[in-house]
């Protein structure tokens, strides 16, 4: 008589699913989430209580409930805008069809793009595009410069004073200069790349280049003596030495610098956008502020929270990248 035996993999899964195991997993998940959720809940309560006491010229400071309804309002505006766009394109196609029917053989009517003031989501995308462009530009400049000054003492001596003097300069101080330079150099602007975009991205790059340069230089300069000795015994050429020993050893510090730079870039971007009128989140806040409607405060707060959440997400993405690239399993990457 054959006896049926449950296969090992099934038994293992079943064990994992048993009530006690699930209970334990649920317990640990709850423990991990409990404190953060509690913190957020307390914050929301304090916010609601505090906001009720503050009266501004634009009305009462909105509490979380009002801010949530404003967020929903922004989403509704986005949906309405999509409907309008669809209708616009439909009308345009109708007109084109009629004209083609009336004069066959004539050139097709030009397709006009749908232009309307950007919705909240479009503005978020613009902000992200600007910040990534500025950040990438700064990384392209900072990493080679950082490597050069990390490897050469004299070069470091020459460049360091400039770094220390320009590092503390606020983006708002750079903006007038950058705006004037871009206006004079960028003569025929392509509508896809408006001046405000260039101004914002250059300002972001100017401010977020410093953490990467400094961290790269430190990472490159602090390759351990032991590894340098190995390189000497093997008689590695200069380029080989940099490629095989200095750069891999410096990668953790370079990523730390990049992470810091991205954080700085996102903060600087909002300020830069406000003044350069790049159609992103910064401009959204500025317009709402100037607009002064009863909904403005709530919408500004939605923008503030969105900015925070996006900054958090950007940092997590960099952290994930850092973990992928890191060869040191013992290093704490948090």
């Amino acid at each position, binding site marked *: 008589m054959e006896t049926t035996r449950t296969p090992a993999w099934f038994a293992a899964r079943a064990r994992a699913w048993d009530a006690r195991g699930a209970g334990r997993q649920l317990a640990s998940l709850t423990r991990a989430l409990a404190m953060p959720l509690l913190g957020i809940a307390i914050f929301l309560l304090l916010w609601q209580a505090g906001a009720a006491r503050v009266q501004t010229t634009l009305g009462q400071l909105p509490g979380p409930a009002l801010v949530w309804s404003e967020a929903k309002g922004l989403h509704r505006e986005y949906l309405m805008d999509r409907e309008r766009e669809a209708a616009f394109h439909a009308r345009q196609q109708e007109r084109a069809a009629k004209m083609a029917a009336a004069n066959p053989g004539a050139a097709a009517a030009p397709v006009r793009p749908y232009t309307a003031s950007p919705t909240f989501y479009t503005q978020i995308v613009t902000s992200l595009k600007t910040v990534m462009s500025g950040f990438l530009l700064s990384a392209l400049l900072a990493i080679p410069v950082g490597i050069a000054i990390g490897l050469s003492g004299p070069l470091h001596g020459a460049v360091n004073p400039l770094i220390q003097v320009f590092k503390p300069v606020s983006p708002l101080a750079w903006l007038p200069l950058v705006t004037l330079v871009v206006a004079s150099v960028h003569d025929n602007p392509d509508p896809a790349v408006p001046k405000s975009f260039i101004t914002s991205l250059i300002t972001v790059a100017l401010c977020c280049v410093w953490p990467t340069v400094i961290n790269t230089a430190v990472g490159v300069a602090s390759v351990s003596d032991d590894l340098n000795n190995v390189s000497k*015994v*093997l008689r590695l050429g200069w380029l080989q030495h940099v490629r095989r020993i200095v750069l891999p050893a410096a990668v953790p510090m370079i990523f730390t610098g990049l992470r810091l730079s991205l954080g700085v870039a996102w903060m600087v971007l909002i300020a830069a956008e406000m003044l350069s009128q790049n159609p992103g989140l910064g401009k959204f806040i500025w317009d709402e502020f100037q607009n002064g409607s009863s909904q403005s405060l709530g919408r500004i707060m939605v923008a503030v929270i969105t900015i925070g959440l996006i900054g958090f997400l950007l940092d997590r993405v960099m952290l994930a990248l850092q973990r992928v690239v890191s060869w040191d399993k013992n290093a704490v990457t948090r």
Partner: protein
Amino acid sequence: MKTLLELSQVGIEFKTDKGPFKALDNVNLKIREGEYVSLIGHSGCGKSTVLNIVAGLLRATTGGVVLDGREVTEPGPERAVVFQNHSLLPWLSAYQNVELAVRQVFRAKKSRAEMREWIEHNLKLVHMEHALHKRPGEISGGMKQRVGIARALAMQPRVLLMDEPFGALDALTRAHLQDSLMEIQRELANTVIMITHDVDEAVLLSDRIVMMTNGPAATIGEILDVDLERPRNRLELAEDPRYNHCRQEVLRFLYEKQRKVDGTARASPGASQPEPAHAPLAAKAPAGAQMPQPARGERAVVTPLHGKHVA
């Protein structure tokens, strides 16, 4: 057998804030091909400095090192070094670490397939063939040091230089690695200079033990021939009177003649008139002879070079 490596009147002086510091003075040593030499002495006596000078990582201010008739001026793979802290590249696997050395040394001379065989052969010599693709972070200290040794051997050096290779390991791992090293030595008959603190290790592994005086201006104090035949078994040797005699000689040098008191070196009492540094001694000094050393205050003449050695 002919002399492979010669240190000739090697001295080195470092510039410090408090003035020049003479770490080594008049070190003379001849090493034959296939010999295993240990350098032993108290901490800070300059053993690593001697090794770094032979390796080319430091340049002597006086005298020089000659290998195969050519002076040593810079580091190179023919004097491969095994560092105390393995010095493996942490982002490469064991195989890739050895490969880096092999590619550098045998770039034009071996084909890809030959290189791969050679790398695997060397890792097999140190019993690491099961962990070829593991990174240093994933293997133990003893295994890392084995890979370090494999990397050095893979360069086919003329002289293998080892700076306290087992210093950072526990006693059991050390014993395993010493046995592995003796096995490799049997097979390859390398010329080896090893720095060690461990008297037992020095007597077990070497053909000659070079004992250094305390710094500053350290030099070679005594040289002891270890006449035990190979292969050496540590358990058998524990009962061998010759082994114990050798140990005793080394310990006597370290703890009586070159005793370190309160962190400052002090020679044993009974100094007779000092003799010129390189007076050659053909005759063997009787066992237990006190080495005439000037006391701390009298730095007029350099310490003489006595000892049991075959010229």
